[in-house]
């Protein structure tokens, strides 16, 4: 039975930091895969992001474009030439920056400086919208989280669809697990900072309490708390940001969410910065 290698949605950094491995393909033949840092085995990737650069480096009769796709975690360059007629048509019509989804085989080339560089042989380039791009990022983040879960937790994955074979073991051990956590966090916060910083914070608090909190504090409650903290730390010139951070750490609150709350209060005009590094409540 002839089988295609699946197209795996991944975040760009996950792919770039992965390791190049040989193995058997879905059809039994030899293949070069990338084992991503979150443990995905990728021959063909789905990447979504913003096409940032489009450079016409072709010559008459030999069209060639160099493009760069970026997501919240990184960027990857690739070329489209005369071997990808359909892609060439799409590329020649689009202007950057634009949201796009790309499907292609991962490949490597050696740069002039002798470094091995990862790129992608695009099989599909589809202009897309912000919400679709965010959807792919959530999907890639969700799948990476599920792989991390299977690598590091004893309990089964708490959502369905992950009963199949486990993830590959990525190179780099605990360090790469930590880096993957940071990458996913970064990606989620860039999609929807209030929603995900609150969700992360609730988990952190429940982990600190050692028990599950049924209701996390609402954003408005945090705003009130922060205003009170600032008032209590204000000795005339406003509250020092560093003191606020100390205070936050003593209270075991998440710095991410407090930063979010502070910027929201600044936006609303309920806080202002009389001097750089100081905050004052109105």
């Amino acid at each position: 039975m002839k089988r295609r290698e699946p197209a795996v949605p991944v975040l760009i950094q996950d792919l770039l930091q992965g390791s190049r491995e040989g193995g058997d393909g879905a059809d039994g033949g030899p293949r070069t895969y990338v084992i991503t840092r979150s443990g995905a085995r990728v021959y063909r990737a789905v990447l979504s992001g913003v096409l940032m650069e489009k450079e016409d480096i072709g010559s008459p009769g030999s069209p060639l474009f160099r493009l760069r796709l970026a997501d919240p975690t990184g960027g990857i360059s690739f070329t489209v030439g005369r071997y990808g007629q359909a892609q060439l048509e799409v590329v020649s019509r689009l202007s950057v920056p634009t949201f796009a989804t790309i499907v292609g085989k991962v490949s490597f080339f050696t740069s002039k400086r002798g470094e091995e560089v990862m790129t992608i042989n695009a099989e599909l380039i589809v202009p897309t919208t912000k919400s679709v791009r965010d959807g792919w990022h959530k999907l890639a983040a969700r799948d990476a989280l599920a792989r991390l879960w299977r690598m590091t937790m004893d309990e089964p994955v708490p959502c369905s669809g992950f009963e199949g074979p486990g993830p590959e073991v990525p190179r780099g051990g605990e360090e790469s697990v930590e880096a993957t956590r940071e990458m996913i966090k970064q990606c989620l916060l860039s999609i929807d900072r209030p929603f995900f910083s609150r969700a992360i914070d609730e988990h952190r608090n429940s982990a600190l309490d050692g028990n599950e909190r049924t209701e996390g504090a609402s954003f408005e409650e945090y705003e009130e708390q922060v205003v009170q903290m600032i008032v209590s730390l204000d000795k005339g010139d406003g509250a020092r940001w560093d003191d606020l951070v100390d205070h936050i750490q003593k209270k075991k609150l998440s710095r991410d969410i407090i930063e979010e709350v502070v910027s929201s209060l600044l936006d609303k005009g309920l806080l202002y910065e009389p001097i750089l590094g100081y905050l004052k409540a109105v």
Partner: protein
Amino acid sequence: MDNEEKAAPEEAAEGALGETIEMTEESYDDIKNEAHRLARELGVSLEEAARSVHASRGTSPQAPSRMIGSLKDLSPGTVNISIRARLVTLHDAERNEGGGKYYYGMLGDSTTTVPFSAWTEFDFNVGDALLLQNVNVREWKERTEIVINDRSRTSRTDDLDGLVPSLDDGVPGTIGELVPESRRIDIECRVLEVQRGEVIVKESPKEITRGCIADRTGRMDFTCWGPVDLIRDRCYRIIGGYVKDHRGALRFNFDPGAIIRELPDDRLPPLEDLQRPLPSRIAEVNSRRSFGPVMLRGMVLDVRGGSGLIRRCSDCGRRMAKGQCPVHGRTKGEDGLSLRAIFDDGSGSAIIRAEGPIVEHLLGKRVSEVSEELKESLDPSSVTSELSSRLNGRPWTIIGDPSVDEYGISVSVKEMSEGFDIELLNSDITSLMGVLI
């Protein structure tokens, strides 16, 4: 089983056993203990000792009860036999003319199940392995039935050899775990469909029961090689049988000797939920060949040739090639729309097939409009490229029936909608967040 018309066994049949004094449970145990003591003390056989005890008490010994090896060997009209069986189902009902209660149900072993009726106290539970002594066998409504009366002795037995496994042994598995050649199945399921049928086995008709069962993990067709009392939309635990690969789909086969116990209705999700397409991954469909409609979330990678405007046979609807129906040859034919595409969900890929209204919906025009356009443009590939730009590289959720053959998985699409289930993604991410901390 219809209990209303059940007739009590005729007294005459039991009179033939010729007991004179009714023995209570205590006196029986008494006699047994006394006989054992005597046999030990006197160094005689237990049988001889029992005779002696009966003689001294003026009771008549029970005629020795003939042990029958398995339920399939029972023949109507035999009296005073003993047999081991598992209590498979149990019901009670009122006797005619206020004569009190009687019990009925099914007894099973590894060979078959047989109905029984008990015209005496019957304090056992479904799943109990029983030793039935001094019971009679009659024909009732053209079926062999075991009759337990007040001269029979029924007790639990530890001798389980040849009996179907007990309900208390082990934990039931799930349909999703079943693979070809799985044996000694033990599952809890809801019956989605059930119907009686007949097959010809060795030139004689055999009644069978067919249908479809489901749990949270999957759905499966079943065939029971005999009549069983399964009712649509009820929940059962079924123990016994095996799984076979039947043209790419798995089928659960069992015989009436399997243990079937009805479960409370809340044990499994309601019928409507179980009939809903199962969210699946392509890799999963490939490995376990789950049965029934699935929901797949993924991306269309490539709209293939054979998509677009096609000709269908006006007699049978089959796709025509060069004006010929593969079955009916040259027929008039009519225009139709078709989609063949590669669909990938990150775990694997499948060919999806959609016809008629689904494709019209994707294109946003009716087949007649497409025909008209093509009469002007004369470029049939324009429909394919329209489908490509509409579908390729976009996220889709499809619902359809999967099938697996040597070419891989194909899904006959019933519904197709664009986009992500963002709520699901958010809730998945939130529940996985523990791993970020």
